[in-house]
């Protein structure tokens, strides 16, 4: 069954009150849409152009008020739902994951268990061009990396599209907007940009589900997702813990092992 048929079925049966999916927008781009009526399900599409991680809407009040939500998701979206459950931001009965395979066929995943099992069978490597850029950065010297990031971050305008698009950035009042004290400077100057992205990467370490939405959202084209991708990979390599693997919280920065290995502490 494809997304249109599945959405129609779910809405007609009242299994869900809304389906978060994609429709075609300006200049052919795919954009999020929330279908509430069975007769509108014809608008839904799901193809390689559908990249947004719709799980970010599962924590938003206007969307939650629509009722039980089905979401058409890529593996990163399913990981996001599991991580949100682990962090107690959403509850299993409130969402229904619709995993769409490359042929467009939909699998319903109603429980965390089903989602975990599905993910275990789905390969979802880092996209090739992202991996190529990560590898290129790894091969650079420290000074070259500084030059790279300063060049990129100088374009940042602090629009917070990255933060607003991230399913894991659900805090109603982000710590970086706090002004008593103003810990991270809001202006988009050198320090303001560096500190913001540094804090964001650290707050996502061990929580990033690698959807890449932050990088795609950036209006000035900074590959900001590489910071969180890199940090996530580092956490996985160092501690064996991964975001979005399970609905049971296993957060690297609130846990430890007495024998954690490092090479730099004297």
């Amino acid at each position, binding site marked *: 069954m494809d997304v249109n048929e599945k959405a129609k079925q779910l809405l007609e049966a009242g299994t869900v009150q809304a389906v978060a999916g994609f429709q075609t927008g300006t200049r052919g781009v795919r954009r999020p849409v929330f279908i509430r009526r069975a007769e509108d399900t014809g608008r839904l599409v799901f193809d390689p152009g559908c990249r947004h991680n719709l799980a970010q809407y599962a924590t938003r009040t206007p969307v939650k008020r629509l009722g039980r939500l089905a979401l058409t998701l890529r593996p990163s979206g399913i990981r996001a739902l599991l991580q949100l459950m682990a962090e107690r931001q959403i509850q299993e009965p409130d969402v229904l994951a619709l995993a769409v395979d490359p042929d467009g066929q939909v699998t319903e995943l109603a429980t965390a268990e089903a989602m975990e099992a599905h993910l275990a069978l789905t390969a979802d490597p880092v996209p090739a061009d992202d991996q190529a850029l990560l590898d290129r*950065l790894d091969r650079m010297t*420290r*000074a*070259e*990396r*500084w*030059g*790279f*990031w*300063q060049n990129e971050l*100088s374009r940042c305008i602090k629009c917070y599209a990255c933060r607003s698009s991230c399913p894991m950035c659900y805090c109603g009042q982000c710590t970086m907007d706090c002004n008593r004290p103003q*810990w*991270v400077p809001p*202006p*988009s*100057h*050198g*320090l*303001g*940009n*560096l*500190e913001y*992205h*540094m*804090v964001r*990467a*650290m707050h996502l*370490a*061990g929580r990033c589900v690698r959807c890449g939405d932050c990088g795609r959202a950036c209006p000035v084209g900074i590959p900001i997702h590489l*910071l969180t991708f*890199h*940090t996530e990979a*580092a*956490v996985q390599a*160092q*501690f064996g813990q991964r975001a979005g693997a399970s609905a049971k919280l296993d957060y*690297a*920065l*609130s*846990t*430890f*092992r*007495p024998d*954690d290995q*490092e090479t*730099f*502490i*004297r």
Partner: protein
Amino acid sequence: MTDTFEPKITAFVCNWCTYAGADLTGTSRIKYPSNVRVLRLPCTGRIDFMLLAKAFARGADGIIISGCHPNDCHYTSGNYHARRRWMVYRNLMDFMGIDTARITFSWVSAAEGAKWAELVSEVTTKLRAMGPYTEYQELALAGVE
């Protein structure tokens, strides 16, 4: 000009081990460079990673972070959490091009007065050779019209 450069080092240390250890260095009359400004926290677990970034932004040329040895934390597990945090943050800093060679992490206990002196001396000598962290300090002024 570089002969007269004296690095400014900010040290974040825990009250129960390293701070006491540094105190012992003093009472033992062991000399060590005065480039270090010591900031006392109850535990390394309290050290927010942003404190390091702020230290560089304020003109530190180098940073020392030191606390109780694993298994000896006064609060049992603070230093384990700190270690995890440093492993992630140091990796991120290096990825973003921040000079992690300017940051030294160590475990110095209350009895290790000599180790503290040795540590500070070594770090000071190293930083004197590396020069001021102008790259970061220039960033602190960049991007304003």
